[in-house]
């Protein structure tokens, strides 16, 4: 029996190399023959005849799985400190098993703890509003004892992961590439940090698979599938975040959205979700309220903290000049660049530069392409 289980796991890892077919099809074929090991023994003609797939697809399945070497793959994973889980293994997340197309194999670097999670997703081109809201929600979730799931992309994803880590919480990043090909490359250090602090970097793709556009929507179903609720922070109509929201709906999970300004293109997606009945999110209590009763029993949601509505405490320690500059910058949602600030206050360059430096060092404002916005 033990040997059989081992062989079935290897077969599933092998079958997982057939990347062009959705896992629900593969699972259906597996159930038809009673397991991946059995499926792989069948000739393509039989699979095509009984499984309802074309002969060409069956041929490709046979060819591509035959070319894979699951033992070498497992050795590669071991070398990188990665566990490979199938639905047969204990650590495979129960919640993920309940979606209709769970990954055949899950590569996990770090630790996939059994805890309630919420997904924070959004665009790579987030506005300062989206970044700071994602960061605050992630922090509050972490403090409430929930894991923060996201996709390690630039923008909202990165802000969510970083804030959860900073709050000492657990965060999970699901990749659209193999774990040896972390994308984007500048987030490699972030991935290491996530795996090293009680969280996990996960992927359903073979270790060495390079990032391919088609695989990113697929990994989104893993993000929503690991989570009780999916919160869209920012994104356009057609963004990946909206794809994740759609997956969450299909999986029967809660879809929530952060309301945004009506004239911001990056809030089109979440505002549309709210119009269609998604729960608007102001803080983590809104998210926790949608969790099943008792899901967050271990830790109460953080007490009502609305400090973000008040001016930051650091403001009190500023010089009068920097205070005036902060007021001018915060008054404009789109922010100001150095020149506009100098003009608005009728200050020379040197005086303006000094107050900007003070604000930037105090992390009260941040610049993007030369525009300063409040953090």
């Amino acid at each position, binding site marked *: 029996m033990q040997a059989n289980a081992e062989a079935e796991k290897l077969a599933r890892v092998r079958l997982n190399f057939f990347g062009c077919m959705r896992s629900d099809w593969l699972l259906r074929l597996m159930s038809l023959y009673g397991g991946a090991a059995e499926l792989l023994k069948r000739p393509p003609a039989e699979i095509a005849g009984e499984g309802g797939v074309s002969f060409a697809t069956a041929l490709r399945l046979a060819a591509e799985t035959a070319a894979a070497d699951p033992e070498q793959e497992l050795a590669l994973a071991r070398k990188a400190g990665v566990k490979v889980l199938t639905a047969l293994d204990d650590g495979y997340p129960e919640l993920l098993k309940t979606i209709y197309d769970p990954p055949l194999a899950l590569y996990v670097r770090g630790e996939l703890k059994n805890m309630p999670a919420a997904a924070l997703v959004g665009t*790579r*081109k987030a506005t300062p509003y989206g970044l700071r809201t994602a960061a605050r929600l992630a922090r509050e979730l972490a403090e409430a004892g929930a894991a923060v799931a996201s996709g390690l992309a*630039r923008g909202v994803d990165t802000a969510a992961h970083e804030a959860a880590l900073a709050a000492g919480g657990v965060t999970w990043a699901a990749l659209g590439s193999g774990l040896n090909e972390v994308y*984007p490359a*500048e987030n490699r250090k972030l991935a290491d940090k996530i795996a090293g602090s009680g969280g996990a970097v996960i992927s359903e793709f073979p270790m060495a698979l390079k990032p391919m556009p088609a695989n990113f929507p697929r990994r989104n179903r893993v993000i929503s599938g690991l989570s009780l609720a999916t919160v869209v922070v920012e994104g356009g109509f057609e963004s990946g975040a909206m794809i994740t929201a759609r997956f969450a709906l299909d999986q029967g999970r809660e879809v929530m959205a952060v309301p945004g300004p009506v004239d911001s*293109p990056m809030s089109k997606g979440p505002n549309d979700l709210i119009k269609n009945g998604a729960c608007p999110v102001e803080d983590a209590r809104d998210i926790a309220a949608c969790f099943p009763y008792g899901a967050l029993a271990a830790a109460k949601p953080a007490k009502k903290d609305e400090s973000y509505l008040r001016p930051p405490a650091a403001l009190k320690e500023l010089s009068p000049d920097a205070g005036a500059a902060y007021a001018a910058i915060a008054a404009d949602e*789109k922010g100001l*660049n*150095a*020149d*506009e600030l*100098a*003009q608005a206050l009728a200050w*020379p*360059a*040197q005086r*303006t*530069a*000094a107050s*900007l*430096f003070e604000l*930037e*060092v105090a*992390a009260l404002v*941040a*610049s*993007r*392409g*030369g*525009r300063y916005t409040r953090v």
Partner: protein
Amino acid sequence: MLAKISTLALKGIDGFFVSAEVYIASGLPAYAIVGLPDAAVKEARERVVAAVRNSGFDFPSKRITVNLAPAERKKAGTHFDLPIALGVLAASGKLGKTPPARLEESFFIGELALDGSLRPVAGVLPMLLALRDSKRTAVVPAGNSAEAAVSGVKCLAASNLKQVADWISGSDGLNACGMVPAAEAAGSGPDLSEVKGQTFAKRALEIAAAGFHNVIMVGPPGSGKSMLAKRFGGLLPPMGLDESIETTKLYSVSGLASAGRLVRERPFREPHHTISDAALIGGGSSPRPGEVSLAHNGVLFLDEFPEFSRPAIEALREPLEAFKVTVARVKESVVYPARFLLVAAMNPCPCGYLGHSVRECSCTPLQVHKYRARVSGPILDRIDLHVQLSPVKYADWEAVPKGEPSAAIAARVLKAIELQKARFGGRDGRSNAAMTAGELRSHCALPEGASAVLELAMNKLGFSARSLDKILKVSRTIADLEGAAAIKREHVIEAVQYRMLDKSEALAGI
């Protein structure tokens, strides 16, 4: 018979003596030029025959050999026509049995037209400067008369071969070259007060002019990058005579000194981004100065900087570091001075609208990263000032007050430059931007509060250690503009503001 005529040739921007020797022997008619002539010199053969005949002389049907000595050095240009023609006339006895003193003691330069008239040539000023100490006379084409006069050498202007031949035989037909009065430089250029807003960009240009710092402007299309750059020259101090002569030499060698005046205004060169690296730096099989040398003692403005070819951008490293360009060829290598202030301009991202107040940027972070990476680190390292520009909103246009006039800024700049002259012992071409590591230590000591600023910039804003030197240099210039002996905290803070491209990428938000 043998004749020797003195003339000059160019290597780089320095002239050297050449003797055009013409030997006419009896034998089958033949005619050859030796002494490493280039194509233009070889063609002198045909021009000289026609010009001599059309000036009313016979061209001897004999065996003629022309040697340009020293024979091992390459000769280029069309100005050997006149000495060769005179050599033929002298060797065939048309100028008298014994060579007249005027032929022996004078230098001759000029290109001949087929009718015997003299055409202006390139490089007259640098060639004549080689004669400065010799007290000898030079005969040049009338078209080069004003340029020749600048050299301070005794020069005569001739308009055709016949005139020259007559003068050699004793007539007084040639006029001395006279100076053309230089156009007054002051007040002629566009003024910085015409640019509204752009407080930081103007301030950055002021600092750049004062410390000879290179500057890069980053801003969306239409934010006034080239408008600012064109007004930058007005902030620089007027050119000294030595600077003028050096720049005029480079213009003369390139055949651009046709107005025949000394270049008194600082050059402003604005090559298009499709320029080849050879045209930018200088090169060619017979080397010519590139745009960097034509901008010598002035401003080189490179708009759309990342669009320049990689080799062109990388080739800027030598002149930015050494203030000269060495064009090495197998047979010779030539050095052109190239001490220019680089003003580069670029968009913040490929579409140009990153950080724009109204329009949305449509670039992906990767595109922005790749665009910025085209300007390599080593080049960015040689640019001390980075400044962000913003488009002026039309609504604000009327409300924005006019800026300071260029003259007021130039006065501050001049004071700062005087301070630097005293600091570096009056050596020419030294500036805050060119400080060595040792000088940096002795001239840029920081007070207590100011070094804390650098630490904050590194820890909180993600500045690299190598950008700290630039911040120090710029702080020194800012202090000089105020006439302050020691760098203060606020000087350093302002300098930090001009190192925008050094902030770590995550913090810069791209």
